[in-house]
């Protein structure tokens, strides 16, 4: 296993780090407090060619690997969690079109997504279908040259702001997971509306909206992959998406650690900086170790993906571990800040609220354990 970075990757990561430190981090608080789409940040990501890192140059991407995409995602998330989340959600439309799209679909949709001129979103979750993807009830019925979509999706990240949606619907409800199909739906298609934007525990500037399809006619050529192959599209997309969520979790955990260390050196109690107390040192040691371990698990899953090897189990492990690390590390950071950590004067209470997202989104910790257990039992149970 070798995920040392080459010269190109180092150049990109250095430039991204500089951008994050100079432009994203200083206004991360404002970006969060604004409670609205971080349009300026998103267009900067597009200008810097960061919206299509793993897409081939032919389609307007950078032609780099998923490891680079993941490492960039960590920098974005640790400097501005909201911007990192938009970046992660965008890939959920980029990836399935890149992987399953026809040449025409790639020209029409992938290229503008990769260049960042358009933003993407992925719609699977419904009121009655989340962990159980096979229970999707949004229907897609072929009618002449169109599929007619009816139903709704909820919690869709980038919803309303994105222009291109990859939607999972059922073309044969009797067949459960095997009846699902994937579609590319453009914002503005008649019959495609946006419903409520959820008020969440954190991430007020990240839209998580309801998508409503009422006799929405989607051109036949927007079927993504084969008909009734939608479950595969969804699972593959979630597989990569898990790497994205894991790296978002590593990012927020690192932000908490990087806030806690200088604070512990500056905050004095009993006449000494609290960083000189072993109780605090042990917390910092555990935090740093766990962030590192979470990052390495995540990088391994991205590296496996780049090698064309199976990575689903490893991505589930990374997502499970990194999100739980994010929760533990941000909680410890609040503890180190003490009373101040509980106030909105400092960002650590926000990190703690944000971290919780990662244990839920894109497959809860329980679903990740199911996925991992299935792999482990299959591999080792004979």
């Amino acid at each position, binding site marked *: 296993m070798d995920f040392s970075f080459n010269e190109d990757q180092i150049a*990109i990561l250095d430039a991204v780090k500089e951008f994050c430190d100079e432009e994203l981090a200083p206004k991360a608080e404002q970006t969060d407090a604004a409670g609205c789409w971080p349009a300026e940040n998103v267009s900067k990501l597009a200008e810097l060619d960061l919206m299509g890192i793993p897409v081939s140059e032919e389609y307007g991407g950078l032609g780099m690997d998923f490891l680079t995409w993941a490492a960039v995602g960590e920098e974005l998330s640790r400097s501005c969690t909201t911007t990192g989340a938009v970046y992660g959600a965008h890939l959920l439309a980029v990836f399935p079109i890149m992987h399953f799209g026809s040449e025409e679909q790639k020209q029409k949709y992938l290229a503008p997504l990769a260049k960042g001129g358009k933003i993407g979103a992925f719609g699977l979750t419904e009121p009655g279908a989340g962990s159980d993807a096979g229970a999707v009830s949004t229907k897609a019925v072929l009618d002449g040259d169109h599929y007619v979509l009816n139903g709704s999706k909820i919690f869709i990240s980038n919803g309303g702001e994105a222009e291109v949606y990859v939607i999972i619907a059922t073309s044969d409800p009797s067949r459960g997971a095997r009846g699902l199909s994937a579609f590319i739906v453009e914002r503005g298609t008649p019959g495609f509306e946006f419903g409520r934007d959820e008020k969440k525990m954190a991430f007020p500037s990240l839209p998580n909206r309801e998508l409503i399809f009422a006799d929405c006619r989607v051109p036949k050529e927007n079927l993504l992959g084969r008909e009734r192959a939608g479950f595969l599209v969804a699972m593959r997309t979630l597989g990569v998406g898990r790497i994205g969520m894991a790296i978002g979790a590593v990012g927020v955990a690192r932000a908490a650690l990087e806030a806690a260390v200088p604070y512990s050196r500056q905050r004095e109690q009993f006449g000494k900086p609290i960083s000189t107390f072993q109780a605090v040192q042990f917390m910092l040691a555990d935090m740093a170790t766990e962030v590192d371990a979470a990052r390495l698990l995540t990088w391994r899953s991205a590296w496996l993906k780049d090698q064309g090897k199976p990575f689903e189990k490893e991505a589930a492990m990374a997502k499970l571990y990194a999100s739980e690390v994010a929760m533990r590390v941000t909680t410890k950071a609040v503890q180190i800040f003490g009373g101040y950590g509980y106030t909105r004067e400092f960002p650590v209470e926000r990190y703690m609220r944000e971290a919780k997202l990662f244990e839920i989104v894109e497959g809860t910790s329980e679903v990740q354990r199911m996925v991992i257990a299935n792999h482990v039992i299959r591999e080792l149970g004979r």
Partner: protein
Amino acid sequence: MNIVVCIKQVPETTEVSVDPETNALVREGVDSIVNPVDENAIEAALLLREAHGGKVTVVTMGPPQAEEALRHALAMGADEGILLSDPASRGSDTLATSYTLARMVRKLGEVDLVLCGRQAIDGDTGQVGPGLAERLGAPQVTFAIELEVSDGKLRARRVLDDFFEVLEVSLPAVVTVVKQMNEPRRPSMRNLLKAKRAEITKWSLADLDADSTQTGFEGSPTQVIRVWPPAKRSGGRRLEGAPDEIAAEIAKVIRDVKLASG
């Protein structure tokens, strides 16, 4: 428009140390960057190219690693980078540097505008731009904050200590720019990767038909007798207490200082 931007690679940190033997800056272990205000000059050139078309050529003289500074300019969007690297140009002061740069500009043929940053953060002389204008026999505008080109003329707004001055000069001209002029663009990742692979044109003094008495140590009448870092400022005093108490204390300190200095 054919625009030439002269840039310099400088050490990143402002806490440079000086080698007591040679009186030269110690560069080992210090990252190098493009002199910050030179980035403003590059940005100004790119904006003029966007408005009027043409080509932006970036030139520098320095050791082989100064190539990195040119790559940064290419990543920002410059068309070509030329490095004058020649052991015989070592020790060049501002006179020899402006001579050498002038030879480079001349070799480039038809040039409409030469842009430089107002001064470098290491040497801080601010002499190379004006020297270059003299050598080229071109009008010079220093400390420009705004540029406008039309009908073969350049209108520039200069920032001076207490006022602005607007000058109009014919082209070709040499202009030095100030930091407040613009916000240098951040290279996109695509340009960054492209710049890493770009060919950098390399010239030696022989390519310039340079007069050896005007380059390097020989062409540099400036002798640095001694260089030393400014004395470190003391830590200062931190005042604590209620705002009015602090204000009273500050007033007292100022009064004492004034009395002491008479």
